[in-house]
């Protein structure tokens, strides 16, 4: 399966696929990487090292700052797959690159296609955006 590669890179990890929209600020604890919305079924799940699939990103413009903090602290997902492009998350990754901290791939894959993946499946992401189950 091929996703659109927004910020290319290679990654591998277990899928965490959210059913609803996510705002990184207010939705992810920048100090632990845990999902914090008590209204979400993934409440308390840590996203560090996972391939995070999000149908839609919403909400705060501070989401880039949360992304940067996760990257600098080693708590970021291995990759993020968004249903639609949201430059706010990408911005956190660009700034991490400028600061010499680790970066991760950012991809776009429509939510309907994401729905074919399940939590816990291991996938590998290639620089061209290919996502393969492993």
């Amino acid at each position, binding site marked *: 399966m091929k996703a659109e590669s927004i910020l290319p890179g290679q990654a591998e990890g277990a899928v965490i696929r959210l059913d609803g929209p996510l705002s990184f600020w207010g939705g992810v604890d920048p100090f632990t990487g845990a999902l914090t919305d008590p209204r979400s079924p993934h409440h308390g799940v840590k996203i560090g090292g996972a391939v995070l699939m999000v149908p839609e990103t919403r*909400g705060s413009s501070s989401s880039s700052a949360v992304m940067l*903090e996760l990257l600098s602290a080693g708590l970021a997902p291995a990759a993020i797959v968004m249903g639609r492009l949201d*430059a706010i998350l990408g911005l956190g990754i660009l700034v991490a690159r400028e600061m010499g901290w680790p970066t991760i791939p950012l991809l776009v894959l429509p939510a309907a296609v994401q729905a074919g993946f399940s939590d816990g499946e291991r996938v590998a992401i290639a620089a061209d955006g290919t996502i393969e189950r492993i």
Partner: protein
Amino acid sequence: MSLELSPDDLAMLAGRDGPAAAMALRIVADTARMLGADRLIDIASSHIDGCLYHGDSGTLFAERLRSDGGRVRVPTTLNVGALDLVHPGRERLGPEQAGMARRLMAAYAGLGCRESWTCAPYQAGHRPALGQDVAWGESNAVVFCNSVLGARTNRYGDFLDICAAITGRAPRAGLHLPENRQATVLIDASGLNPALVAEDAFYPVLGAWLGATVGDAVAAIDGLPRPLAEDRLKALGAAAASTGAVGLFHVVGVTPEAPDRATVFGGVAPRETIRLEAPMLEAARRRLSTGLVPADGRIDAVAIGSPHLSEAEVDALVTGLAGRRIAIPFYACTGRHVLDRIAGDGRRAALDAAGVTLIADTCIVVTPILSAASGLLMTNSGKFAHYTPSTTGWDVLYGSLTDCIESAVTGRVARDEAIWR
């Protein structure tokens, strides 16, 4: 589409204006590439969301810009920080985090930004003109700037805001382009009960419904009263930008780019028309509350002021309190621009006498202020209602300003449900 940079952009990239400007332009240009922009445009002003502490990384970035000689080249205001610098000690941050938060705020001030420390810069004198391109962060400020002022900004994330301010440039994409500002979804509110639409408490609920329903689409709402108070538009937009990714909405006959339906849709039929009905709003209102009212009706705190209270909203609070004292903590979040205006004319004294805790420069969902790790909070803000559970661990009840005041005076939940029927 590839990005074409101007000679001035290229000179900045090459270091003409120093390493901070070069880094800032690299970030603006790479963001432009992500967005598929063909070139950069000049911006007239910026509003910075990046001054709020989320961990040391943001402080280190801002200090890098500062030590590398960064300086904003357009008028720039600052959003809230994690500290109330007017009332030290309000926030319950540990000394290390407070120290880093203070360094972050100092770094942004040192870059030449105005120390406005408010999420309502548009009520603190920062009001770009209709059609002007700007680069604003903070989701509620963005949606107000686009929708109510008719200036043009995308939903810029933290860091792009300061990079745009330092370079004076932003990607030519998204809501900077007139064709992307036309509405595609029509919300017909004409069938709602006029008594409900006359209530302030209706507008955050409408916003919460709008964001959850349209996501990032541009909607035009028709059938609301004309004119519509600015604070109602502010509350609507803030809620819509919390539950959704709304960067721009129009209200037909009210907001500047929507004189009539034909104009706001660019002469094209709406892609979708939604006729608003009371049950839809009732569902949205229910989603704004997570807490159950305990058997004894006890409530632990009230918070208002997201976005920061305007002078008119402070007046409404003073009037509603009517000289009574509150029985539980009541946090009213606002900016220095309002504190300055209410300082000497009895309004500040009235709030102090009632026992209201005024918060400036920050608010209860962006930094730890609430006095316990959990509890039940009432608010009239759609944005507070949306974010309080995840950022504070508290449960929340949504109510009108009157509900908030009456509940605070008695310490027991007092909600007038009749307005929603």
